[in-house]
């Protein structure tokens, strides 16, 4: 990885060899916001016959994704990251892979026929859908997806990139503030540290001011280790956020820095 938080794409093909079974990576980094060059990675991996799984949890709230056009083998996402209900998500897989894979769980509706001599599983996707599904969750998620479509992706993207640009400028003006992850292509996520303060201290003060941020290592400890930091404070923006809210965040950060000096 480069210092600004981009994958070192030239190094990538060198990491693949005959023992590589799967390339799995995030479409968009949850810690840094970096949008990864997934087309190139998929092309390189496919060149060596290696399938690719993309974790799109942080990508699907911010941009439309066409899995067929990407030619990705597997794509997963979380409903709650795109304003839908919790506890439901999507795992897309190419039919050829899904056909080849055994069911991971047994239950109702995933079996076609059972006898003492053998069991035949139902067709995909049913063989992976054991038992009573999360019906309400799936319907809720579809409603959230429709809502995003109604707003329009170009408007969402314009809105979020404006907020990201504004926040980057406003926060860069705070003494001692260091943005972690400065890749040119980023989703609306801003990770940072304030001077030598611990992210958790900053988060506690912001929380008290009614500003919700995430603090910690974001479950990416190796990445934090590479930067030599305990974690970051992360502000995530969506289309519904506003510039005045970012002003309040900047003001809150100045207060936090003062208290923790």
């Amino acid at each position, binding site marked *: 990885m480069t210092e600004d938080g981009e994958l070192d794409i030239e190094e990538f093909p060198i990491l693949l060899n005959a023992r590589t079974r799967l390339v799995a990576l995030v479409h968009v980094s949850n810690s840094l916001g970096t949008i990864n060059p997934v087309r190139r990675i998929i092309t390189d991996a496919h060149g060596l016959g290696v399938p690719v799984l993309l974790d799109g949890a942080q990508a699907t709230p911010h941009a439309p994704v066409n899995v067929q056009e990407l030619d990705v083998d597997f794509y997963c996402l979380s409903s709650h990251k795109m304003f839908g209900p919790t506890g439901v998500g999507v795992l897309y897989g190419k039919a050829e892979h899904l056909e080849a894979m055994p069911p991971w769980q047994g239950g109702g509706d995933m079996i076609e026929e059972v006898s003492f001599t053998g069991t035949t599983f139902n067709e995909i996707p049913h063989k992976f859908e054991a038992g009573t599904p999360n019906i309400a969750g799936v319907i809720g998620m579809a409603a959230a997806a429709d809502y995003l479509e109604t707003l329009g992706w170009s408007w969402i993207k314009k809105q979020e990139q404006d907020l990201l640009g504004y926040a980057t400028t406003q926060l860069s003006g705070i003494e001692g503030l260091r943005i972690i992850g400065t890749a040119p292509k980023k989703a609306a996520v801003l990770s940072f540290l304030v001077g030598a303060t*611990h992210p958790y201290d900053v988060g506690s003060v912001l929380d008290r001011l009614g500003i919700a941020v995430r603090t910690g290592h974001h479950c990416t400890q190796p990445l934090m280790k590479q930067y030599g930091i305990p974690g970051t404070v992360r502000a995530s923006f969506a289309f519904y956020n506003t510039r005045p809210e970012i002003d309040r965040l900047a003001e809150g950060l100045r207060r936090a820095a003062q208290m923790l000096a």
Partner: protein
Amino acid sequence: MSVLTERAQNLIEEFELFDDWMDRYQHVIDLGKELAPIDESFRSSDYRIHGCQSQVWLQPGQEGANVQFRADSDAQITKGLIAILLRVVNDAPAHEVAGTDLAFLDQLELKEHLSPTRKNGLDAMIKQIRLYAGAMAARSSQSS
């Protein structure tokens, strides 16, 4: 009134002097800065309190029948909260520390501002302090 209750009462009165949360937080941070440093050898995973989002190390110690803890954290507010805990328990008899629930922090009007993960961390610290104190009390009663 036990020594622990008395000290807790003093702390509650001390915190009542502050009108707003910012001053209370600032006081917590300042108390943390006054905390005596731990020996470097205790800054290891064996002495780390798990359940905190920030790193916390607790160095157990004893002077006669009394407990004498030292602690440190890489986060300032956490360090301040430990300082408050240690101000109450240090130099108090181990058996009393082990037998008290140390719930006085609820009354400092701080806990409602703590996030669930921080509250878990604090509970983990209290639990560890009481465990150590229990072991120290058991050892003292055996040797006497």
